[in-house]
């Protein structure tokens, strides 16, 4: 062979790559640009303005939905990360046994079951509980979000645990550390980047959810995404663009942080 094979030197590679990037990012760029539109149209440019950001900021419904999203997201992220950490420890710190693969599948089930199915199932299930208990608060949303966030938190934590040298825990035990102390002093500190990554991933996933939230929420329990969906039905103003842009910035910030945290100490 005259030259080493390189994908970069295949004909058309640059064109395909450019097309992919344009298709991916052009709509987002347009959306962001029109967030700064002075006119009240999402297609005709009327000069630069920050008024839609201001309008969104002063819209109590937006603020309310945002706060609710953050509340649900943070509680669900913390809870799902705790469950995911326990599940990851239980499925990695053991000799393989029949049924272990089934447990992996059960933990990751929310990734495979269509969201709409989970949404409908939870709607029916929770409505029974509502009738029975009379409680109709935000707890249902928190429970639903916690459940579907578990696999997202579980995956980075398990990956981290699987890469960890088991001899370290053995060495701690050899040096008089009880199992709890060995976990606190050795396993947990080494696991932190994985746990933080899982936590952030779960938070972003919860923040972003529409389908399940739409089915489970009661009246007046809009999260930011379901509020936006509701607004679009009534015609779009650049306020939606402004909210989306802020949302985008936040997600990018969290994912960037996630990237740096999971890279640390490797």
């Amino acid at each position, binding site marked *: 062979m005259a030259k080493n094979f390189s994908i970069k030197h295949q004909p058309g590679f640059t064109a395909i790559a450019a097309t992919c990037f344009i298709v991916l990012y052009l709509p987002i760029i347009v959306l962001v640009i029109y967030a700064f539109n002075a006119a009240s149209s999402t297609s005709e440019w009327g000069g630069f303005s920050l008024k839609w950001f201001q309008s969104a900021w002063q819209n109590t419904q937006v603020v309310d939905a945002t706060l609710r999203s953050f509340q649900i997201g943070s509680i669900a992220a913390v809870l799902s990360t705790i469950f995911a950490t326990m599940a990851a420890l239980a499925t990695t710190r053991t000799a393989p046994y029949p049924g272990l693969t089934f447990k992996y599948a059960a933990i990751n089930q929310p990734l495979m079951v269509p969201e709409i199915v989970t949404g409908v199932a939870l709607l029916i299930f929770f409505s029974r509980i509502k009738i029975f208990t009379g409680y109709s608060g935000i707890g249902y949303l928190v429970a639903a979000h916690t459940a579907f966030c578990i696999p997202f938190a579980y995956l980075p934590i398990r990956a981290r645990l699987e890469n960890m040298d088991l001899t370290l825990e053995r*060495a701690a035990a050899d040096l*008089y550390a009880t199992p709890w102390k060995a976990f606190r002093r050795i396993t947990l*500190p080494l696991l932190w980047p994985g746990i933080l990554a899982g936590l952030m991933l779960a938070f972003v996933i919860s923040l972003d959810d529409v389908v399940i939230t739409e089915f489970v929420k009661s009246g007046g329990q809009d999260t930011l995404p379901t509020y936006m969906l509701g607004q679009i039905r009534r015609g779009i103003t650049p306020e939606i663009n402004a909210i989306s842009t802020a949302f985008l910035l936040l997600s990018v910030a969290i994912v960037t942080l996630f990237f740096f945290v999971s890279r640390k100490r490797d």
Partner: protein
Amino acid sequence: MPDKPDRNAIEVVNVSKIFGSGEGQVAALDTVSVSIRENEFFTLLGPSGCGKTTLLRLIAGFDFPTAGEILLYGQDIAPLPPFKRPVNTVFQSYALFPHMTVADNIGFGLEMLGKPKAEIKARVAEMLKLVKMEALAGRRTSQISGGQQQRVALARALAPQPKVLLLDEPLSALDYKLRKEMQIELKRLQHETGITFIFVTHDQEEALTMSDRIAVMSSGKILQVGSPWDIYDKPAERFVADFIGETNFLTAAISEMANGKARATLKSGATIEATVAQGFQPKPNATVVVRPEHAKLTKAKGELSGTVENIVYFGTDTHIHVHLDSGELFTVRQQNTRSAGCGFEKGDKVGILIGNDAAQVLKD
């Protein structure tokens, strides 16, 4: 050799370890018994899969025996978890805690034992000095070399003053020069601390140079326990003779057995004096071993005769392979001098002289 008290630090009594169940059952250890004396450098030597690491893991508490007892100064520790045993381990991979400094690693055991901070600090400083790592106390363990990691692993395991230190092939990851240095270093540490060392290795040279006593293991059993000299010069059976060093196997008829000595009549008809392994049962075709450096080649007549088949130069010495007239093969190792060659050539008719204290009769 310094006087070793006859107190036993570890007694392994009829210990078996069986992995798996039913038909796939494997006995990693098969009713093993051995006593390890206080303050000795004891080596478990054998090929991989012989059960030496399993035995070490049972003493450390990472695994529990299927049957038998492990006594530490008379107390059965076999059912105790590792964190309740006053025994520490130096791991093959060192297993240093990557999120802690060198000093924190060394102090970890003392901290877990609940020692006061001042005492830990003093002891860590003492340990750093012992392994000559004072300058690197504040470093992360990922920022030091393999040899330095090895020293930290040693210091960490020695810091809590264990009754017994277990070493699981700790030198295998080091290059040749560093390994030689660490062999001497380990011997010095053992001497200075006075702690009983149990060392696992598959490297027979390492075992011979460092140990007070060696247990040679194969297929889950201990075949022979003795000083390096015993193991090398008086192997009890074929596996031991073959695994350690190089040796020549000859068939002989044994007569006049008395006081551990006998006369062995070789196939060539010559009779030589030989020591006899304990437990030898008289039989017509016994096996006699002679180390290549304990025989001499001559152009005159010897106890054996044959033709030179091959000559291999090794720097310090030359190995001369002789095809005996009886059909067996025999190697003689001859010390080299600077000026002359070995004095023999391929195809030479030669005799082999076997001295009075060169042969050992095996029991199998």
